[in-house]
């Protein structure tokens, strides 16, 4: 049985991981602020966004996001429905989220995007960071066409 101290700490960890995810969303919505986003990942982190690519290491993740605004002029990362499990060690955690993301791609073209995240987190010196982000997009569709006529737009 976990002690009262441990139970309260787990709830605080869940809260801090939610705040981490929101901070990530806010940096993404701030023209994909590359330094801000990179500061939330540990050195050997992996970001995998399916059609948007696979990047290993904080430097590679930073470089990807530095160019993201060339394709995505504006986005709102609306992350919802979190489920966060903190490991009994209290130093690693897993999270699952939904995202619905209204966006404006180069054009300008209004887009509907939606998907799910599977994340892994690690606590270093009392602070939570992303170890892995796995974003699985269900659709990336032009606003006027919708997600049935064009489930995944051509990014070229």
């Amino acid at each position, binding site marked *: 049985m976990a002690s009262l101290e441990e139970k309260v*700490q787990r709830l605080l960890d869940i809260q801090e991981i939610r705040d981490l995810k929101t901070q990530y969303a806010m940096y993404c919505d701030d023209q994909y602020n590359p330094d801000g986003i990179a500061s939330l990942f540990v050195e050997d982190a992996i970001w995998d966004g399916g059609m948007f690519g696979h990047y290993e290491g904080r430097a590679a993740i930073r470089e990807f996001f530095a160019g993201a605004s060339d394709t995505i002029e504006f986005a709102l990362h*609306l992350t919802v429905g979190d489920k966060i499990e903190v490991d009994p060690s209290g130093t690693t955690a897993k999270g699952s989220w939904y995202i619905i993301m209204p966006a404006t791609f180069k054009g300008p073209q*209004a887009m509907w995007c939606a998907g799910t995240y599977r994340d892994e987190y690690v606590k270093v010196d009392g602070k939570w960071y992303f170890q892995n982000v796995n974003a699985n997009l269900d659709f990336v569709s032009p606003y006027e066409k919708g997600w049935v006529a064009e489930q995944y737009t051509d990014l070229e």
Partner: protein
Amino acid sequence: MPSERTVEQRLQRLEDIAAVRQLKHTYAKLMDAGLCHENKAWPDDRFLALFADDAIWESNVHGRHEGREALRALFAGWAARITFAKHHTIAPSIDIAPSGAEASGHWYTWETITADGQPIWLAATYNDDFVKRDRRWLIKHVRSNIQFRSPYHQGWAAEAPLPQMGA
């Protein structure tokens, strides 16, 4: 980072975070119910009681409104034009001050609205302040930064960007 020493202090912070989240939920729910109601008597005292007497509501689109009577006038203006609204408030991130009597919170909101008979998408962020008075959390300052307010039939790429409010 949590600065509390005792488990009671940490638990109190979690309870305060939950209370502030619930306050924002009540704000959205009472506003949507009021705006959707056929026989509008909104904003009513129940809704305005969510705010501190000296509360401020401001946005990059609506300007700044201070004091409960100014808020009443602002919201009455919305009620005259809006017949349907759903404020989907998303991803709360709440900081409780070390005093335990003040808090700040960030949310996203994604809104489906009918205004002047037209369907509208509205997206915004909230950066709000709260105060605890007589053991009850109240809204002190709402800062809404509206990213777009766009007709459904056009989408948000066709519209000119909205002005940005200073921090």
